[in-house]
């Protein structure tokens, strides 16, 4: 039995509870009567209210990456490849991951704090007493909204970052609008866009489920709410990197790199 003692570890306990929470999500999702109105409401809060932040970050991301990459390419006499290189980097990896990390910070902490404070002030119990299934109303709607909205935000960040790239290319150089977009679309293929889009659904799901789990399992009053919000961001960010690592391996195995 002493060899099984490691199972008592807090990490494994937490992982087990998160898996149980995820399984409950799918169980509740498969039952009839979904909370469509709340789902639309959450899409607005998670999607629309994060749009500005993701847009500005995306633009700066494209601009900075282009400015930083230029000197190396100039050194090798490959300055003309700048739009192609930047677009592949942004679309395949940087924009989806940075967007997911921003969402982990904003959405993950928001969900952790919102549900955590509802838990400690007995609002979730009040919902249950009124005959509403709080898991379906609060968790299923928020996780679905995050799963749907993060890919949309990531796609927008992709597009906006390419505009940032155009500005970056033209700060030191002179590339026409048409030539820039010609080079961007010449190098990009569905093999770049589709895997990058698919993994953002998983990013969104992970951010939603971790934020809701942390909030739903919040304890010990206001201190617990703060801890839920913080750990939601940390765990969701870590999940984003782990999912990205797995996605890259799968893409590589499928020969899409």
């Amino acid at each position, binding site marked *: 039995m002493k060899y099984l003692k490691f199972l008592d570890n807090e990490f494994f306990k937490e992982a087990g509870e998160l898996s149980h929470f995820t399984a409950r999500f799918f169980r509740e999702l498969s039952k009839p009567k979904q909370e469509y109105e709340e789902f639309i409401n959450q899409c607005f809060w998670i999607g629309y209210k994060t749009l500005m932040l993701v847009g500005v970050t995306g633009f700066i991301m494209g601009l900075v990456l282009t400015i930083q990459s230029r000197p190396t390419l100039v050194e090798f006499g490959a300055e003309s490849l700048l739009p192609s290189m930047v677009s592949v980097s942004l679309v395949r990896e940087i924009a989806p991951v940075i967007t997911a990390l921003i969402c982990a910070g904003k959405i993950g902490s928001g969900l952790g704090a919102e549900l955590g404070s509802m838990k400690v002030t007995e609002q979730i119990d*009040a919902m249950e007493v009124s*005959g509403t299934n709080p898991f379906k109303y609060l968790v299923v709607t928020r996780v679905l909204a995050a799963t749907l909205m993060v890919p949309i935000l990531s796609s927008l960040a992709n597009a906006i970052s390419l505009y940032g790239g155009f500005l970056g290319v033209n700060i030191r150089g002179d590339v026409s609008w048409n030539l820039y977009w010609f080079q961007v679309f010449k190098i990009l293929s569905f093999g770049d866009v589709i895997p990058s889009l698919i993994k953002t659904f998983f990013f969104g799901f992970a951010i939603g489920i971790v934020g809701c789990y942390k909030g739903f399992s919040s304890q010990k009053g206001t201190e617990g709410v703060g801890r839920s919000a913080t750990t939601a961001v940390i765990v969701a960010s870590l999940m984003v990197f782990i999912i990205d690592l797995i996605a890259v391996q799968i893409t590589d195995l499928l020969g899409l790199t």
Partner: protein
Amino acid sequence: MEQVVKNPVIEVKNVNKSFGDNHVLKNFSMSVLPGENLVILGKSGSGKSVLIKCIISLIQADEGEIIVLNSPIQELEQDELDHLRAEIGFLFQSNALYDSMTVRENLEFPLRIHWTKEERAKGAEAAVKEALEDVGLLHTINMMPSELSGGMKKRVALARSLILRPKVILYDEPTTGLDPITSREISELMVSVQKKYNATSVIISHDLNCIKITSNRVIMLIDGTCYADGTYDELSKSTDPKIKEFFE
């Protein structure tokens, strides 16, 4: 003269509940008759809140049987339990108002499950207004909970628990944290809504003024068991040191 035998609205039989080594309820039994205003009195941490949360199945009892409105609450399927909960109002100690919703939305929330869309379109507005009028806060209908005082929040929470016209109302320390005047107003309000809705009430409290105003029977919960059962006057005159301690 023929005596009318009333079936209890709530029956708690030999209920046990522990949290780790802390044995909170030990073979606890009680019954509540229709129209009664039963107060459960006990020290902090004696298991009073656990008991009413077991009654509404927010906490599962380890052993024993709880029957509410002739339904064994532990054996009900989720749908049946939701249906039964429509007959039970619950006033939380912390009020538990949804802080992202207005007072109107807070009151409409229970209706979305128990009323059809047509019923809500037809009667929700009137039901909300009537419940708010009952607690004297119709003017707060469009306010957020954060804009209300402690006493007002309590009244709105009470209005929300009344919106479905429950047969049983459970109050978890309704006057805790309120000043004596507001506490008295809330206690009187509880009596008036009980009369209007002809509901049965179970009140968890250790506020003697509230108990005096609201109760027609008092149960003392000491060491997880029903230590004493009687009217306020009977218990307040008791010479038992454990009971006397509360009334001094």
